[in-house]
């Protein structure tokens, strides 16, 4: 038989609470206790509200370019809910909800986009890396972080987030290959939101799923409805078990949608149909949970009204904290360069507004004594 089948494979897709409100009892029963579900819903609502406010802050000149997270809240939140507090969370910039769940003060995110590095000065106890602006670079760091815990014999793992666009970058493939071949406990979570600025997903990946890319590296993989927090939690539990107990990486493709523009500097109406956006608005991860909770009798309009009031107050307080921080000292960007500032850089720092002559003031006092 000269030609045999070298490999047959399949990609599982997990959906528990679908867009029509259908709930799969077999997979979903006891997956998220009601009290937790209410808390997750509240967190998504807060994140959404802050996202709306951030957009307005940018439009009114109170903040720089900001990438909205709207519509993608369930992915990072579901992941952060399953992870331990000391597992590394290595994100890019559409994972606000998961970061807040971990304990990142939300004003830190605002500060970052307000052009202030202090937004990245994160309590090390939170095990969070700062927002990664260059696309698709942070997955290698997650692999290194998880490698370190393997090296030390710890049970900590890492979970890294990236978009469908990032899977085109070379670093993505290098991270996957390292993790699979060196047995590193890292969860790769692709938020497939269908758009990399104006470029649609098919330009990044012409295979039917992004998830199948992991197969080429010998890594376990799954696709889930990324707008279904139950499905995300289910997949994360599988991933975390494999990573923590067996030291293997795992790939999750969370299929979701970027409801907003890429950033406030973008205008998605130039390149995508409103109909498509409207279709995905119907699949909103937050509305889905709310409807389900109402159906279950654990949520009602008065609770919703109270929550909205609370969210309004909390987000106002967050914005106030971000805006009331004192202006940064312009010494900061010199002082933060090295553990100890080199003498030459220190001279630049001290004389940056007072002298130009080789940034050495003594030269200015000398001209009269020069030979000329």
């Amino acid at each position, binding site marked *: 038989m000269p030609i045999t089948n070298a490999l047959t494979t399949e990609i599982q897709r997990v959906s528990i609470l679908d867009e029509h409100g259908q709930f799969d009892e077999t997979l979903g029963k006891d997956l998220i206790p009601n009290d937790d579900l209410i808390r997750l819903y509240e967190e998504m609502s807060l994140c959404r509200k802050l996202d709306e406010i951030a957009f307005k802050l940018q439009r009114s000149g109170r903040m*720089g370019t900001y990438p909205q997270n709207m519509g993608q809240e369930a992915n990072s939140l579901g992941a952060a809910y399953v992870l331990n507090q000391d597992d590394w969370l290595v994100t890019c910039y559409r994972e606000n909800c998961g970061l807040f769940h971990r304990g990142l003060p939300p004003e830190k995110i605002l500060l970052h986009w307000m052009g*202030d*590095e202090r937004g990245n000065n994160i309590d090390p106890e939170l095990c969070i890396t700062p927002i990664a602006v260059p696309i698709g670079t942070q997955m290698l760091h997650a692999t290194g972080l998880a490698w370190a815990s393997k090296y030390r014999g710890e049970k900590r793992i890492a979970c890294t987030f990236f978009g469908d666009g990032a899977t085109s970058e070379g670093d993505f493939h290098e991270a996957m290959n390292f993790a699979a071949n060196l047995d590193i406990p890292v969860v790769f979570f692709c938020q497939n939101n269908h758009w990399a*600025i104006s470029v649609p997903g098919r330009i990044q990946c012409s295979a039917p799923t992004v998830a199948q890319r992991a197969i080429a590296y010998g890594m376990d993989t799954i696709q889930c409805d990324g707008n279904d927090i139950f499905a995300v939690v289910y997949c994360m539990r599988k991933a975390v078990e494999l990573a923590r107990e067996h030291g293997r990486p795992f790939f999750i493709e969370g299929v979701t949608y970027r409801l907003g523009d890429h950033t406030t500097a973008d205008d998605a109406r130039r390149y995508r149909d409103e109909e498509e956006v409207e279709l995905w608005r119907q699949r909103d991860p937050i509305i889905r949970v709310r409807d389900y909770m109402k159906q279950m009798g654990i949520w009602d309009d008065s609770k919703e009204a109270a929550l909205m009031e609370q969210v309004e107050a909390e987000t106002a307080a967050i914005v106030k904290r971000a805006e009331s921080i004192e202006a*940064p000292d312009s010494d900061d*960007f010199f002082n933060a360069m090295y553990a100890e500032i080199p003498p030459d850089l220190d001279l*630049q720092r001290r004389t940056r507004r007072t002298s130009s*002559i080789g940034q050495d003031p003594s030269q*200015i006092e000398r001209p009269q004594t020069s030979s*000329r």
Partner: protein
Amino acid sequence: MANLTLVQAINLALVQEMEKDDRVLLLGEDIGINGGVFRVTEDLQKRFGEHRVVDTPLAESGIIGTSIGLAMAGLRPVPEIQFDGFLGPAYDQICSHAARMRTRTRGGLTVPLTIRVPVGGGIHAPELHSDSPENIYIHQPGLKVVMPSSPYDAKGLLIACLRDPDPCIFFEPKRIYRAFREEVPEDEYVLPIGKARTVCEGEEMTIVSWGASVVQCMQAIEKSEKSIELIDLRTLYPFDMDAVEASVKKTGRCVIVHEAPKTGGFGAEIAARIMERCFLHLEAPVQRVAGFDTIMPYYKLELEYLPDTERISLAIDELAAY
């Protein structure tokens, strides 16, 4: 003649070269239907089709690496790297291959491509969207490096790059993308790579600069009572040392202004060349007003980093008094 911004002048140059030469094709992230994040390639996909204005996967190494292949096959690719800070993944392809192919094959394979890159700070952008890495590529033998400071120059220099037989990096100072307009001829014209422009003539001092900083230099000169000559290098490799030499021999004093960090910046090379060629004509040490040896701060402090009129004026005064 039309009154155009830098963005429009570049767009016009691309249109004219694409109409004239079907070997010219554009590739990059978001350059097609979206017209580029700065709209430099606006409407070009509509006009020339998806096969000539190509939205690529999000992969800078891929964009440059495939452009090298396209160029070796005889086409004239014009890849765009969306921001200065995203050159990182493409560095290997630019420096290990584009810059070396001609000499590696002793002329058997050449790489005539033009990499367009928005560059520099001052637009309140996020991290890695405001850097000035020109010297990294000036220091890589085998590349030509160009940075216009006006719409007129941008059109003529871009056409020169597109027709050049060797790899060019065309840095577009984003701070002045739309800062002012200038009369730009409809007809095509070429400004030679390697020729500086004397922006204004003067007798007492020379300022050498390039890119968006040229605008800050002009403002400082207008405020000063001194007679100052401003030279915009326009092309950074090869660069017009003859123009700098002639000016400094005349004035005896020189300030070099650039956004990139001071240490190891291109100003150091200019200063060293002035020492080689003009030593006996100098009345004062050559000065540099540059970015500091720090990472470009996030935008709350970016104006503290960028050379501004105040710092340039200080240098002018101190140098004149020396």
